[in-house]
């Protein structure tokens, strides 16, 4: 049995269904990229996978020794976090909270785990710095370290490179790919098709057409070819995309 099996899942808000009949599987060690247009339900799917939202219909089965709360989550940044007075250490350690249950304080092992994950993400020198004073890339590393404290098995990343510059974006992707090589299963929501095709082992495309398969299958499919072409076109015109970045048009619809 796979880590996560999704059967005939429908997603939506209230009575409005935004994506239906989703079927896919995530096996241990996979790198699944969820792509699709804005408003196609990528973030909703992620929230449903995390049990933050009830599905409209269908099932999410969890197996292979994975427990419900053993999914690490890298959410998009919220407004609250932008001026939150907390040190990197406090935030990373809070990733262990799910393990605590009713126990009020952290154990030595949990502190050690937090320490290890800080080293793993290369943010040791930031340990006592204030979160709100860090750069966007550094903040993402902190949140990734926190997610790793919650689990060593599956990471769900929601637009992990949103708002990062190209260099930091590349570093972030490498970091995530590195974690995947270490055996951590990655599920990533992204609309960066080029990166998805470079790193992912499987692609789930949602929207008007639904596709699930390996990267190679996706490249061969109609929707995959179309998306790949558009991605290449925008790569060929860096000026244009830079202009877009400067103007700050990064789909406000995705941000809550």
């Amino acid at each position, binding site marked *: 049995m796979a880590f996560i099996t999704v059967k005939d899942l429908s997603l939506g808000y209230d009575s409005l269904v935004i994506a239906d009949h989703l079927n896919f599987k995530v096996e241990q060690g996979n790198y699944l990229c969820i792509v699709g247009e804005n408003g196609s339900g990528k973030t909703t799917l992620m*929230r449903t996978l*995390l*049990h*933050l939202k009830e599905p409209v219909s269908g099932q999410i089965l969890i197996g292979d020794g994975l427990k*419900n*709360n053993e*999914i*690490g*989550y890298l*959410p998009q940044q*919220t*407004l*609250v*976090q932008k001026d*939150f*007075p*907390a*040190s990197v*250490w*406090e*935030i990373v*350690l*809070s*990733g262990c*909270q*799910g*393990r*605590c249950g009713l126990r*009020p*304080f*952290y154990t030595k092992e949990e502190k050690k785990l937090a320490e290890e994950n800080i080293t793993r993400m290369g943010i040791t020198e930031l340990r*006592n710095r*204030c979160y*709100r*004073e860090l750069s966007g890339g550094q903040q993402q590393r902190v949140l990734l370290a*926190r*997610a790793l404290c*919650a*689990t060593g098995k599956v990471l*769900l990343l929601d637009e992990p490179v949103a708002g990062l510059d190209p260099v930091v974006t590349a570093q972030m992707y490498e970091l995530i790919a590195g974690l995947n090589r270490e055996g951590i299963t990655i599920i990533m929501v992204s609309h960066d098709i080029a990166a998805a095709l470079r790193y992912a082992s499987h692609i789930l495309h949602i929207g008007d057409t639904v596709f699930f398969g390996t990267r190679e299958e996706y490249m061969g499919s109609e929707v995959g070819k179309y998306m790949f072409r558009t991605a290449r076109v925008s790569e060929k015109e860096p000026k244009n995309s830079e202009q877009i970045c400067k103007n700050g048009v990064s789909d406000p619809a995705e941000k809550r």
Partner: protein
Amino acid sequence: MQKWRFRPGRKEVKKEVDKLFEYFQYPFVRYALIVGVLIALCSSLLGVTLVLKRFSFIGDGLSHVAFGAISIAAVLQFSNEMVIVLPITVISAILLLRTGQNTRIKGDAAIAMISVGALAFGYLLMNLFSVSSNLSGDVCSTLFGSTSILTLTKGEVWACIILSALVVLLFVFFYNKIFAVTFDEEFSRASGTQTDRYNLMIAVIIAVIIVLAMNLVGSLLISALVIFPALSAMRIFKNFKAVTVCSAVLSVISAFSGIVISILAGTPVGSTIVAVDVAVFLICCIAGSFK
């Protein structure tokens, strides 16, 4: 304390200090200090969380609800108004904190709505079914804090001590969880923390504190006790633990000196404490900008 006087002589300072010690002889002054400091401590602990969760106005909203509840109690001629005030405030707190996420009316609008609605409704009730001869005096003392802080009985003081101890214990015990839920509720929920339970706990505690604090500063000024110490501490410190501790310390100092000043200068207790809080905030702003 003496600045407004022209060149205070040594004798005069001594006289004031003597006066203070003389006041401390009276149990009611000691009671007021104990209760004031404890309430300030409790409200500042949760203040950090509320400010960060963008719920700064919840103190204001809830205290207005409590005002409405008091007027209902007065109209129904309840002898012990807490019986009705506490449950109503607690329920409103739960409703308000619950509306924080994904509802049609967003948190700030919901608070504003309930707050103003309860205030208007309370005043209307008091006017229509007034049983007191001094209506505006009653309303004024509920809004700006009455002298009832100086007429506390021993039983009330003990009740306050026990409730405050409970609040502090709960806060220390759940400190790590409160931090996790405040920083990132979605993440905490996804990784298996019962965030609803802790939100509920925060709501109940804040409601209890507000009902307690109404005696001290009145319902219009409660927000100051909740938010000023937290905001002051955030100017200076940059991690959560330090901010929490500093906010508690600042709040206790402000409340203590506020009460002392109000006794010596004969000013209203509530507004004096809030004035000290504002002064501390300004000092912290300046200190923070030099850092």
